[in-house]
């Protein structure tokens, strides 16, 4: 008997039954298909503009910094300011992403922009965010052809371009968004990263230190007026 068979036989034996009857299996399958949310905390049940403020507050609490801009056109300048303020060379590794390509990077001549997965010595990445969760100030990144996950972890500085209309209240809203965006037979990308603040550790005498293995800095560029234009 294979290990698999032994384990299943033992599970059923311990529960004092054989395989589940077909109607019960159908019921459990239906429960999965319905994937009903459980209790959702009240914290993020707010009007959208207040959800954005909650997101900003919670992400700042976790150690993220912000540039709040009125348009994409202002992004290159804000990026340069962030890099200068932290004395980081003006070299950017971008997700090869259509949304990011709409930003006029050439407007800031100092910026040296390349695109693709993260390389070993890239110091700063710029990636779009799939969504952002107000409840805990959490960014969501999905892997894919235009969004290599290495950019979220390898560089010291992670700059995230976030459209304010992608801010949602609770985690469950992101699951809804993932289900709508993906193909029906597999809506989950290989990797979904929920990121709250820069990397940290408390493994030396419970002292909190930032920049353990992932980014030391997480800077969020929040683009807000296009939301109002769209409405």
């Amino acid at each position, binding site marked *: 008997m294979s290990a698999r068979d032994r384990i299943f036989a033992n599970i059923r034996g311990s529960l004092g039954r054989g395989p589940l009857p077909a109607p019960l299996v159908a019921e459990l399958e239906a429960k999965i298909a319905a994937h009903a949310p459980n209790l959702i905390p009240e914290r993020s049940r707010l009007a959208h503009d207040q959800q954005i403020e909650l997101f900003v507050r919670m992400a700042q609490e976790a150690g993220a910094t912000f540039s709040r801009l009125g348009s994409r056109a202002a992004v290159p300048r804000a990026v340069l300011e962030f890099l200068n303020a932290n004395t980081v060379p003006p070299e950017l590794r971008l997700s090869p992403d259509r949304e990011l390509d709409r930003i006029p990077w050439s407007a800031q001549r100092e910026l040296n922009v390349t695109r693709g997965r993260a390389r070993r010595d890239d110091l700063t990445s710029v990636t779009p965010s799939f969504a952002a969760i107000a409840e805990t100030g959490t960014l969501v990144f999905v892997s894919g052809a235009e969004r290599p996950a290495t950019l*979220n972890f390898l560089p010291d500085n992670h700059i995230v371009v976030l459209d304010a209309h992608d801010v949602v209240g609770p985690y469950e809203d992101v699951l809804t968004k993932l289900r709508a965006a993906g193909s029906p037979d597999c809506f989950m990308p*290989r990797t979904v990263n929920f990121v709250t603040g820069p990397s940290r550790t408390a493994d030396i005498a419970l002292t909190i230190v930032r920049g353990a293995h992932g980014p030391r800095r997480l800077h969020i560029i929040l683009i807000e007026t296009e939301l109002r234009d769209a409405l």
Partner: protein
Amino acid sequence: MKPTSHAFSANAHDALQDRDLQRALKLMETGFSAGRRTAVARLPEFDELCEQGRAIKNHVLEHLDFYLERFEGEVVARGGFVHWCATPREACETILSLCRSVRAKTVTKGKSMVAEEIGLNPFLEANGIEPVETDLGEYIIQLADQSPSHIIAPAVHLTTDQISDLFLEHHREHGKTKRLTEPQEMVGEAREILRERYFQADVGITGANFLIAETGTTIIVTNEGNGDLTQMLPRMHIVISSIEKVLPTLEDAWTILRVLARSATGQDISCYTTFSTGPKRAEDLDGPAEFHIVLLDNGRSSMLGSELQDALRCIRCGACMNSCPVYQSVGGHAYGWVYPGPIGAAIDPFFIGLKEAHDLPAASSFCGACESVCPMKIPLPKIMRHWREKAFEEKITPVPQRAGMLIWAWFARRVTFYRLATRVAAGLFGLLGRRRGRFSRLPFAAGWTAGRDLPAPEGSTFHDLWSARARKPPA
């Protein structure tokens, strides 16, 4: 690992004399318990989320065969593999053969208690493969050649000074000759050294906090991001996990994730929560080409339907040990096996035998702190009591304790004798101790009175006081 739980008493004695350990353990109250209380206080729905999480886990355990098969089907449909392993040996051998299939020399590892349970590192080393721990705490204890003393803070027993020495000793070969004392600098140095290792590794091994039946997803939570670099850079990602970690849907995972970090570190959420589904897709620019899940039973299927079933709800947050006065006094190593603290006292006797581990459930005053902070509401004292009873029945309990219990039981079952005996004892001790009001030394209880005095009884028994009170109701 070879258990030393049978020596708990001696281990605990040494731990109490260890000044470095005592200094390190002192940080736990502010580091963990206060943070947990704050995080819980600012989420009014916390208790109800725990209750729902508990119900989800119970439902899964009752239908575990269904959810495991469902999970396996989804993993395979995404191009991943599930390897079923009944024993630690099978799990180690499966992982070794996977590593050999890609001619691995070095593997990076995220933090995994199941990997500790199966003794993966020594097994890989014995077979010529170098495991590199990447979680900073695990990295530190790997340098120190120790085992984790806490399930989420493996190096919590070490002081900054001790870690400074370790880094100086082991980082010399990387050209680092300065003894660092600031945690910020020390973390920076370890980051630099481990960065190399991520790129050298042929295989990345992580654990999993949850397995999702709906999508075949595995979930890890970390604060450092080490679990992510571990799984995304090498060509093969192996997940080592155990069968009770499966959940029905992604929604169910979020319900339990909401209570996990709050219970563990007092964060609303850990920095990184990562959902991994299958290997990299054809169009992906990075990620592992192969995705394997090694699923360990190691007797868990036999815990179902027994007194231990509730313990299978454990989400390994560590809140029970953070709140335990015994753990906080002696630290995790005294427990002598993989899982320390109250959860260890509940499950270690199952894994390593009651004969080896009978002291662990006995080392509790049943204060109930562990159960009160457990987000999955596992009745830990009840499970420890079960082990105590079993140890007594199987005559594992040491003879003096057994004799004491038998004498007490003889009286307790004979009300008249019991009352007479307690009345005589209370009167006699009351008389003997009436001058000082306490005893500094007692026969057969030298250990107990070594650290404290026994207050002398005032002459009458509880029963007498109770009857007197019943006759004369308070005004």
